[in-house]
């Protein structure tokens, strides 16, 4: 059963009708085949029109769509010989952050990302992509490994935020996030970060201080979730839609604000409708960035990365 978002109702109706027709008859029935094609074109036009003008709140739902490709899928499609590495060597293994060594387009890399999981048991195992300090400290360990072996460091960001729990606080959630940024900003190897779904606040930026910050077209990246913002500023989470508008959390707005370097187009109807295509587009974008960064020496990488963040916040939205 396909998962439709509430603003996709018209598409759902068309696609259900197409399914019904397909069940009704064999392919030889020309009239029905024509009708199916007609409906398919209509559905595509409908999707196109919906997705070309998604509101920020709708984008939040697309970014969180359960069928949107997650980190594991990206890794298995884009990375050969992926060798997952576990543990922070201090306390535990946090599967909210997956990472390891692998070969991206023939080149050894270190990859890290937040994995949300795809069904109940994997969601629980990955804690819905909400990392504890151990996850961030594992990421730090892998950053240091990338540095030691001079391998590019690639991150895929997809998290509602860092996990808010008693143990996480006791073990230094804040410190773990801060240290991630400190180490990442100091790396002398290329660092490419892609927000593929949800970029939830501090939990996201811990893995997003790179030379290039890319964002999928319908992903979001924000200082606070619209729900959280609404409950604080509007004193009611019913106002999440307004908060999503006000926060300017879309890839398009972040591009205008100079916070991201590149926006990666998603196929019509969003990443969840064309996973392979989306993953390929992300792979291509990472590859372009790595090519771009490949002839930079360690010092200029660090220096330019720093300058890039220092330059942020000079332009606003009109």
């Amino acid at each position, binding site marked *: 059963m396909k998962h439709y978002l509430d603003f996709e109702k018209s598409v759902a109706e068309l696609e259900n009708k197409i399914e019904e027709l397909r069940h009704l008859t064999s392919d030889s029935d020309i009239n029905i085949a024509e009708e199916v094609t007609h409906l398919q074109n209509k559905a595509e036009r409908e999707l196109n029109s919906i997705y070309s003008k998604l509101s920020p709140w709708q984008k939040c739902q697309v970014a969180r769509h359960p069928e949107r490709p997650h980190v594991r899928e990206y890794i298995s499609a884009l990375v050969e010989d992926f060798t997952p590495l576990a543990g922070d060597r201090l306390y535990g293994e946090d599967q909210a952050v997956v990472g390891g060594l692998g070969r991206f387009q023939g080149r050894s890399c270190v990859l890290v990302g937040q994995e949300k999981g795809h069904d109940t048991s994997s969601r629980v195992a990955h804690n819905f992509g909400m990392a504890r300090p151990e996850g961030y400290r594992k990421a730090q360990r892998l950053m240091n490994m990338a540095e030691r072996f001079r391998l590019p460091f690639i991150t895929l960001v997809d998290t509602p935020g860092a996990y808010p729990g008693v143990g996480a606080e006791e073990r230094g959630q804040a410190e773990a996030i801060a240290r991630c940024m400190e180490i990442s900003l100091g790396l002398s190897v290329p660092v490419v970060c892609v927000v593929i779904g949800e970029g939830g606040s501090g939990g996201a930026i811990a893995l997003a201080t790179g030379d290039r910050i890319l964002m999928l077209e319908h992903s979001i990246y924000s*200082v606070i979730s619209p729900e959280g913002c609404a409950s604080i500023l509007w004193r009611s989470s019913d106002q999440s839609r307004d908060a999503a508008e006000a926060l300017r959390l879309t890839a398009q707005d972040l591009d205008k604000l100079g916070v991201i370097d590149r926006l990666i187009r998603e196929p019509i109807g969003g990443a969840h409708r064309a996973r392979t295509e989306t993953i390929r587009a992300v792979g291509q974008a990472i590859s372009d960035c790595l090519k771009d960064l490949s002839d930079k020496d360690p010092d200029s990488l660090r220096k330019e990365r720093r300058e890039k963040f220092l330059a942020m916040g000079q332009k606003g939205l009109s």
Partner: protein
Amino acid sequence: MNWITNYVRPKLQALVSSKNEVPDNLWEKCPACEHMVFHRELEEQLRVCPNCGHHMRIGPTTRMKLLFDEGKYTRISLPETIQDPLKFRDRERYTERLKKARSKTGEQDAIQVAHGTIGGQKAVTAIFDFSFMGGSMGVAVGEGLLAAAKLAVEKDAALITIPSSGGARMQEGILSLMQLPRSVIAVEMVKEKNLPYIVLLTDPTTGGVSASFAMLGDIQIAEPGAVIGFAGARVIEETIRETLPPGFQRAEYLLEHGMLDMVVPRNELQETLGRTLKLLREPLLGEALPASGKGKKAASKAAASDEAKGSSTAESEKPAAKDEKSGKKPAKPEAERVTEQ
């Protein structure tokens, strides 16, 4: 740059915020133990409750007077930054909220940067003003931290950041989140010059502020009872449905969990900071300097400190040169220093 010293400042303050003045004869209730405290006594106690020791919040001005030697410091003006980059509006326009905070505090934003000496050691402070929109960190605060770091480097001074903040300023959206890495860069600027970076965590230090510059100090000090944490206690309680242990996210709790070096009462802060800075920046006192052959004491000390000498002779010229520059203590020949002790 427009330098304003605290000699001018009180007059300005009096003009701007006279309405905040509390007459000396008023009583104040301690929010922790509900004890009524005579206002003047409370001020004398640095706003620490004489009954229960609760540390009430103090503003940057009081803080600077408290920390800098003889209460003397020089504030620097901070770079102007973009106003309301997102054109943010919730139930109220962000520009309106800013206007109110500015007229309430007489300040441009939630951070103040100053320099001076603490225990004779050069220091730059970057202090958050909780009364300015909850001390929230937006572009202006980030710029303030960067300016403080640059000033520390320029003056060859330690950097002390003193957060009191609910976290990132939501009204600046993603740009407030970007102050996390930007503030980390500020810290790195100071660290790569081998200057001390100390964080004094005061109530409260939460959210994005805790997850950036505030957790990266060479030394982490907190005031007693300060709330320090990443996620809000309410969020943890409501979303995760975990019961919070007693004292959760308080300074003492963090100390117990290895997140802080020390919890220091307000009246001991200046001494602690001064001593710590001196230990970091003057590794060799007169006595420990390599002996030039004069006096028994010097000879025996030199023998005892062979190891120290070996690792830091290259540095031993530096403190003397610094003293000269600041005009504080003229550099003395080594032998003279030794006998002086």
